[in-house]
């Protein structure tokens, strides 16, 4: 299912029914069990979920960054401009990685080559994908670095990564990713390792670059605050599946899955009084060596019904462009969980 019907343009990146598994000493782990999501030009899709839910694996497998073996994509397609980039690394005569799709990662301190100048690392992509000369590539690299609001970009480009702070390194990584003006930027937890103040700067930077280039952003995060700030569309992931998908307003104000409700409830707010305490979600995520045949959230869901255990829930359309993987949306389901938004409600 593609994005909301409000947008007529087709998605830039359309992932359908992705399945990824790994061979380990304990058996086969099903890390991603049927994820589908898409993102449009100029828009940001946030994939939210807790550690181990499969969000990083999804995007990394599409980009070919998961070692295969021991990993395997057993099913699914990822269409970029209509071409499946899981099977093909070149679209319309251009490389995908680094060129049409850029990626930035979580820990900027270790993500750059310590023995190479920062400017050269940016220039590399231009040399390889655009065929620039060393000189031209370096000049352009300095330009891109300036775009990321790094002061004294020329001087910085000649320095090595160890001379940069965390925030600056992330900017440098962003520069590397956008140097070839990609259609999609995938940001895998870009702010998790940074201070809160720097976080805000980086996110604003991404938004500004997006407005400038018109690129689509896929933002992986576990922080709902970041989602609220950046996302246009949200996909909530749990135990290798997308359990809820919709616009940011839909997911935040009209949550249609018990897990999303749990996440929201767990977020401490300034209005929570001391005596109330924090409200975590009880239990732990399911073991993906032997994934549950029914709903993955069954063990922890306060509203679980009998059929939720053995039967895997269908994907229900709650509202146009808003779907949830939960039996509570079955027409025969009782009206428990009043805080859960259902079809037709305001």
């Amino acid at each position, binding site marked *: 299912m593609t994005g909301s019907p409000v947008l007529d343009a087709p998605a830039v990146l359309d992932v359908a029914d992705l399945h990824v598994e790994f061979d380990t000493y304990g058996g086969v782990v099903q890390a991603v069990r049927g994820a589908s999501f898409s993102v449009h030009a100029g828009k940001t899709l946030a994939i939210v979920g807790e550690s181990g839910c499969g969000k990083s694996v999804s995007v990394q497998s599409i980009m070919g960054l998961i070692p295969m073996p021991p990993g395997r994509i057993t099913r699914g397609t990822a269409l970029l401009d209509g071409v499946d980039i899981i099977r093909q690394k070149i679209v319309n005569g251009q*490389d995908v990685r680094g060129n049409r799709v850029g990626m930035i990662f979580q820990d900027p301190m270790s993500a750059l080559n310590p023995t190479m100048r920062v400017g050269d690392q940016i220039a590399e992509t231009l040399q*390889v994908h655009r065929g620039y000369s060393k000189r031209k590539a370096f000049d352009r690299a300095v330009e891109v670095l300036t775009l990321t609001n790094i002061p004294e970009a020329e001087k910085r480009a000649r320095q090595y990564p160890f001379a940069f702070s965390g925030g600056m390194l992330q900017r440098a990584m962003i520069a590397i990713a956008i140097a070839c003006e990609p259609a999609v930027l995938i940001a895998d937890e870009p702010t998790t390792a940074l201070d809160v103040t720097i976080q805000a700067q980086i996110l604003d930077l991404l938004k500004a670059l997006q407005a400038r280039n018109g690129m689509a952003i896929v933002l992986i995060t576990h922080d709902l605050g970041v989602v609220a700030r950046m996302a246009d569309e949200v996909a909530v992931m749990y135990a290798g599946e997308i359990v809820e998908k919709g616009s940011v307003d839909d997911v935040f104000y009209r949550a249609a899955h018990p897990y999303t409700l749990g996440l929201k409830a767990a977020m401490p707010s300034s209005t929570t009084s001391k005596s109330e305490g924090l409200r975590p979600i009880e239990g732990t995520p399911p073991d993906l060596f032997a994934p549950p045949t029914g709903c993955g959230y069954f063990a922890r869901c306060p509203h679980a019904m009998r059929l939720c255990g053995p039967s895997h829930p269908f994907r229900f359309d709650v509202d146009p462009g808003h779907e949830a993987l939960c039996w509570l949306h079955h027409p025969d389901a009782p009206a428990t969980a009043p805080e859960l938004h259902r079809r037709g409600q305001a």
Partner: protein
Amino acid sequence: MLLYTLKRLLQGIVTVWFIATATFIAMHAVPGDPLANERATTESIRRNLEERYGLDRPVTEQYFVFLGNMLRGDFGISFTQENRRVNDIILENFPVSATLGILAVAFAAFGGVLWGALTAIYRNRLPDLIITFLVILGISVPSFVVAALGQLVLVDINAWLGYSLLPVAGWGSIRHMIVPSMVLGLGTMAYLTRLMRSSMLEITSSDFIRTARAKGLPPTRIFLKHQLRNAILPVVTVLGPAIAAITTGGFVVELVFAIPGLGRSFVQSVQQLDYTVIMGTTVFYGAFLVFMVIVVDLLYGLIDPRVRLE
């Protein structure tokens, strides 16, 4: 950088002093009077030595004489070879050992980096298994056995070919240098291969390689500019001590292949209890090694930019 160099040099000098002192103490702990060895000395040498070293004076005085001489670069005269200055012995034999050592190190370094990178790339496939097997042999078989076997094989090859492909012993031309330096470098090459392999494997799973792949760089480029460049650092670190090991291990190769180097003369001087030569060689070798390690460390600073600003 300059300050760092000066600091290292100063440390080096202190270390050499320590080595000289330790050598002095060790030599004077030897039971018996070195000059009492009738076979070794003639009357004239004996008088010369007594005069020069004050062997009849108290030990502490002798120590300062010794240090004084050392500072002036004078290692004295040989006990057993009449009128031969130790300095001359060292100057004559050292270049040979140094050449052998440098060639062996070069051979070991090249080979180690090459094989190590190959085993990492073809991990768990056939090239890896073969090379790993050879490497394990290389670190287990004692160097002297390798030297002896090497010579044996060479003799056989020459016999089978009917002419001398490479000389079996001696020194003098490039052809003489090939087999001994290969034999000498073999053990270190095996060690460096393993080091390079683990370094490569560690680098390959690191974050910045993931970034490089995400950039869509071609594999060759990733290999050369990103993997190799970083993986080689531990190998360079080890190169200093490796040079030390190779130069001392050179003894055996020099003995087996009859190469007139410092190692062989050292062993001979030990067997003949030629004390001045023993002391002189030890201090000289010690100083040489200390400064080699400093040179390598400075070299490392050139490759790894992180060290430069320390």
